[in-house]
């Protein structure tokens, strides 16, 4: 009861404050409230829940006057499940955060479980307002069908995700050049297969491999096809304002025909469908794999870890080879906005304080705290930039894990700073990123749509089945159990029967509402 009257008092006070013209002192002080305010939070990710003892949380509490008390438990590692249990219980905390927020808040927000944020940001969160005004596409991407934002997202920095990698020491050994176009890539793969670059006398090289077979599909890009427009597999993409799916395009058909040929010729890992996530580790450490498409940071790391085991090992990023029409495209990039973040529930009695608290992490000071941890403990300011301390950089524990353990770099609503990662990236990764930066190979991402109830019904009814069918045919074609050219017309006709055009229609209407018609 006392807490309630206290918070009521604060609300009234804050309400009064908000009526005075703008905040004269908004930037000079990070205090949200003079009287300490404790808010409850359900913050769940696969690996950890919010911890009241995190140094970052304590620091933020000191600076804002708002402290968060976690109620999420590690009873499940599945964040969606944790979220469902929370919603079904009907007993909502002040803040919900962590993984799998976007779809959930955009469904349950309009139903009344979460507070709409547009107005709150407009009036009380100058830093966030500045950010969203400057990035309308991000704002559009996270808004629900009613045009309201219901969560503050985690905004990753750094554009590059995956890149093409090749064993440059093998190339040198076979006196070959880095492949520049798709025909040259084909020749290099054939050479890797036939000319025994690992020198063990056996024809055991796997010219092209991936950790997941879905990643291998990206080869269709070389025949001007598309696989996915986003971080999610088999996702839609937008072409000149038109929502499309890669798996019905001519380029895709052409690409699949060639992938099937490569697969048959054993240029692609014959076991790519079952080898699973350990394949990169296995194929590189056994000196078998030649070319792959994978994440910058972890893949370049093998140059260090394999140096002793495989003398001369060199796995370098190379520019995406030219497609048949002469385009160089890297289809994958890091998403600029994650479905992770945090949201204010309808049960929250202090929405204004909460949004101000959220806004703290969008201030320069708060952003640094969320990215680098505590000044003096984890980093020092050098020439106005936060630089990690040597003991942090040389610790056995990876820097991201060190940051998580104090509550930095956790998926609260904040803007990541690429400078954090750059300081501990190995030189091979930085070199590769510079190469990709120079060539500017990235293409715009599809950031998803928010359906209204009618659209969602149509999408749910047809899409899962249609996508299922696409994948079944796709694997059958690649494995050679049927022929893409013979099947194609029947395939398109079957997708029409399965309601694919209706799916595209609702995707388009949701897209137009959200991002505006082109």
């Amino acid at each position, binding site marked *: 009861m006392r807490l309630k009257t206290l918070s009521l008092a604060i609300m009234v006070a804050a309400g009064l404050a908000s009526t005075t013209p703008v905040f004269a002192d908004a930037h000079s002080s990070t205090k949200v409230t003079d009287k300490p305010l404790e808010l409850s939070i359900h913050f769940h990710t696969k690996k950890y829940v919010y911890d009241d003892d995190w140094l970052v949380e304590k620091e933020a509490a000191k600076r804002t006057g708002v402290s968060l008390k976690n109620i999420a438990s590690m009873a499940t590692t599945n964040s969606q499940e944790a979220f469902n249990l929370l919603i*079904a219980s009907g007993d909502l905390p002040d803040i919900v955060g962590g993984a799998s927020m976007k779809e959930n808040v955009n469904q*349950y927000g309009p*139903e009344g479980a979460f507070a709409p944020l547009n107005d709150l940001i407009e009036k009380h969160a100058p830093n966030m307002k500045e950010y969203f005004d400057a990035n309308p596409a991000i704002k559009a991407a996270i808004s629900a069908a009613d045009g309201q934002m219901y969560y503050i997202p985690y905004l990753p920095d750094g554009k590059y995700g995956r890149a093409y990698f090749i064993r440059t020491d093998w190339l040198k050994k076979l006196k070959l050049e880095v492949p520049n176009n798709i025909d040259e890539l084909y020749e290099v793969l054939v050479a890797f297969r036939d000319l025994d670059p690992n020198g063990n006398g056996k024809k055991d090289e796997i010219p092209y491999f991936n950790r997941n077979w879905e990643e291998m599909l990206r080869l269709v890009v070389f025949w001007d096809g598309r696989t996915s427009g986003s971080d999610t597999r088999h996702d839609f993409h937008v072409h000149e304002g038109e929502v499309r799916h890669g798996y019905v395009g001519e380029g895709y058909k052409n690409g699949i025909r060639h992938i099937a040929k490569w697969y048959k010729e054993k240029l692609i890992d014959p076991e790519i469908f079952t080898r699973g996530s350990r394949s990169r580790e296995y194929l590189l450490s056994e000196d078998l794999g030649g070319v792959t498409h994978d994440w910058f940071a972890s893949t370049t790391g093998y140059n260090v870890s394999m140096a002793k085991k495989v003398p001369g090992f060199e796995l370098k990023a190379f520019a995406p080879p030219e497609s048949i029409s002469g385009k160089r495209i890297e289809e994958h990039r890091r998403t600029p906005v994650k479905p992770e973040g945090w949201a204010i529930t309808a049960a929250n009695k202090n929405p204004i304080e909460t949004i101000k608290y959220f806004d703290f992490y969008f201030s320069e000071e708060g952003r640094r705290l969320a990215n680098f941890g505590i000044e003096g403990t984890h980093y020092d300011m050098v020439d106005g930039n936060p630089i990690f301390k040597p003991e942090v950089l040389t610790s056995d524990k990876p820097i991201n894990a060190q940051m998580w353990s104090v509550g930095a770099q956790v998926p609260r609503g904040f803007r990541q700073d690429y400078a954090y990662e750059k300081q501990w990236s190995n030189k091979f990764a930085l070199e590769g990123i510079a190469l990709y930066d120079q060539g500017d190979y990235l293409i715009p991402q599809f950031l998803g749509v928010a359906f209204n109830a009618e659209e969602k019904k149509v999408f749910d009814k047809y899409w899962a*089945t249609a*996508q*299922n069918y696409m994948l*079944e045919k796709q694997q059958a074609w690649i*494995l050679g159990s049927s022929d893409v050219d013979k099947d194609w017309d029947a395939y398109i006709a079957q997708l029409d029967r399965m309601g694919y055009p209706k799916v595209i229609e609702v995707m388009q209407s949701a897209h137009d509402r959200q991002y505006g018609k082109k």
Partner: protein
Amino acid sequence: MNVIQSKIGWFIRHVRREWQLYLMLAPTVIWFILFLYKPMYGLQIAFKDYSIFRGIEGSSWVGFEHFYTLFGNDQFIRAIWNTLIISSLSLLFGFPIPILLALMFNEILNQTFKRTAQTIVYLPHFISTVIIAGIVITAFSPSSGIVNQFLVWLGMEPIYFLTKPEWFRPIFIGSGIWQEAGFGSIVFLAAMAGVNPSLYESAVVDGASRWQMMWKITIPCILPTILIMLIIRIGNLLEVGFELIILLYQPATYSTADVISTFIYRQGLIGAQYDLAAAAGLFNAVVAFILVMTANTISKHYSRTSLW
């Protein structure tokens, strides 16, 4: 009035006298009420447009819409067929094997050998499904798997088994038998231990061979157990262990591998359609109920052994 009073009085005296028995019964009854009867209330979401936030009461009725959606979907129909085929085949091949195993164990005289052999066949039961899937994937790998190395040794081409629809069922059913047959034999061994030894003693006196004793004594005596187990198995016919399928299947093998539960799992993942999943689950339960009733009636008619 008097009759009712005396009945209540009798019931109270009865419970007082036998309270230990009721106490032992209580955990099971509570378990049934909490985990089987109470959730039945939630089954109504199969006929509703369900939202977890609005709750069961707050969601609106949609009648049979979810059932129309399901049965209008070719992939669901295919999943029903696959479920029936996979279950029937595993019943056909998987059911007799534990009985055979039990009979064989029963005939072993050397106790050390018997115990060792039993432990070895029980062991796979205790391995987690993820590990089983890993073992299967490795064993059937085209380059390093033991099965394909054997084929190559025979001079045949290696086969990429796990991408071939025609191989999925044999592999799935076979690994299921390998994992569960040993453990399944325990109940039959227990039944055999309950056979009256005097039957065997008099058979020996009459000069019966071991073979004759097995056919004339052991099998008839454990027949009720076999029939009860069979009825239970039939009741679970639609419940295929979907974890192993999810770990082993590929889009390429959906045509033979996709069962009702995996279909629901994929549908549920996209858009969290609990109402649709509940509708499919309800359909599953109704079919299972009909199957178990039928099996029970047939068994009762022909052998006088039944669940109830």
